[in-house]
């Protein structure tokens, strides 16, 4: 099994962090994983992305020409990454920011109001964690419990004050993944 996810969005939306969480969850499950960011100026405010591959065997290329899932947190990343989604793949969209409809029909779409759900969770910055909850809930790339443990690993020491909001954001995403109809 190998699953490649591309996270795309504005710098500051936390997509590198969401990818890191997914990667850490995969490590906790004893899987192989690669996390590859777009680096450089994107980190300073433009459109950024990262590619996370989770596999049950050693990973070859950390760069992909086809994604099994795309998490698009802003309109430019939907335009950029929708074309390389595999047929039948999952598009997780931040419906709070993306009004455009996906162009393709041969895919599963999970349109989550990530920004709104992040606010309900207690912190506007948790947009990408909501999306990650949706991704994990819909695909099962890793178990939800591994993501909760990964959250604790990554921010439990550095920012314990953020754990509650992060966990709430994750749960909102997981819940919506189960509730929202496949379209």
């Amino acid at each position, binding site marked *: 099994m190998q699953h490649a996810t591309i996270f795309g969005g504005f710098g500051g939306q936390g997509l590198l962090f969401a990818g890191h969480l997914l990667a850490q969850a995969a490590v906790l499950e004893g899987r192989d994983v*690669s996390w*590859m960011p777009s680096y450089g100026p994107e980190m300073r405010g433009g459109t950024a992305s990262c590619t996370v591959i989770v596999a049950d065997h050693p990973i*070859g*290329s*950390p760069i992909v020409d086809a994604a099994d899932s795309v998490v698009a947190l802003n309109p430019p990343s939907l335009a950029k990454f929708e074309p390389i989604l595999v047929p039948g793949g999952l598009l997780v969209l931040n419906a709070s920011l993306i009004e455009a409809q996906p162009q393709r029909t041969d895919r599963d779409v999970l349109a989550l109001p990530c920004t709104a759900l992040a606010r309900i969770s207690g912190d506007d910055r948790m947009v990408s964690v909501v999306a990650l909850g949706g991704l994990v809930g819909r695909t099962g790339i890793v178990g939800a419990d591994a993501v909760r443990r990964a959250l604790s690993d990554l921010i439990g020491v550095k920012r314990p004050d953020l754990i509650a909001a992060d966990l709430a954001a994750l749960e909102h995403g997981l819940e919506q993944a189960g509730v929202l109809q496949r379209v």
Partner: protein
Amino acid sequence: MTGSPELLAAPTPLAQPIHPVLMKGNEAMAEAAIQAGCDAYFGYPITPQAEILEWMARRMPELGRTFVQAESELGAINMALGAASTGARVLVSSSGPGISLMAEAMSYMAGSELPMVLINVMRGGPGLGSIGPAQSDYFQATKGHGHGDYRVPVLAPASIAEAMALVADAFELAERYRTPVMILADGVIGQMMEPVDPTYRTPPRRSADWALTGADDRPPRAVRSLQLQPEALEAHGRRLQAKFATIAECEVRWAGEQLEDAEIVIVAYGTSARVARTAIERAREDGLRVGLFRPITLWPFPSAALSAVAADRRAILVVEMSSGQMLEDVRLAIDGGFPIFFHGRTGGMVPTPGDVVEAARQAWAATGPDDEPDPLSLIELGERSSVVTR
């Protein structure tokens, strides 16, 4: 399969299994250097290697060791030259534009026979180029940098775990042969995260009976590259060349994957080798037997091993993130006996597995009888890759 002579000591076995941790390539290389006993680090920030400097800035002072962010790359490498003269274990890191600035001191250090490890996390060039990953500094690393008649060992990691191991090996090689050693990584190796076992190796210290430690109770020593007498410089050069010959004989490393039945042999190092690995899986699913020959030492290049591996194959396909630099060493190793194909991307672009499969298919199709059925003829081809027949 590996062609590496086991000259370097194996890692110390651990009493308890260690769980893998997720590390970024730059940070893993920096920590590996610290654990290898690096006494001093000198650097200047540049993407995509800045995390090495940042990691060292935090960790080295914690350990009471020397960290200096110099005023420029010129300053950094000349500080390293000075520190290495005292027998210290020294690390410097940069990316292409900075390595070019360091070239002069590399030559001085090779001439003065000073050990140092230099990490180049390659980005697109020439000039300031881009910050994207590239392998366009192969010529510089293996044939160039500074002036004069010298070589330095160049080690090319294809994973973060391998990068960590090679950092320790590089210190050992540097001190064994009294020479700068370069780790040639690229932006992907530097920037990505992979799980690694946090096991490290500290090479044993050798007695540095040449180091400048103060001549209070012993005859004075000199560390220099200046030899004004032609006879003396020629003799010095011959001694250096004898050392390089020993390195070329004893320190060649490479790895092979799926070579046993391979008709097409891909030659690739670093990130290109990772892409090739995925391409090979895909090609084999479609019945095209492809294998990988991965040089780990770029100098000394594993010419004899490649020549032996290539015998009786159908074609060689070289894949690089450059316009064809290692390709020249492959052609020298094969010495005209064989069809060689090339696929390269540049400027921060990374070849995709699909590109490489297509290049392998074209190499296969171009080398057989005309009426031979193509095992990949059913694959839907996208944009044609930039294959150049050599």
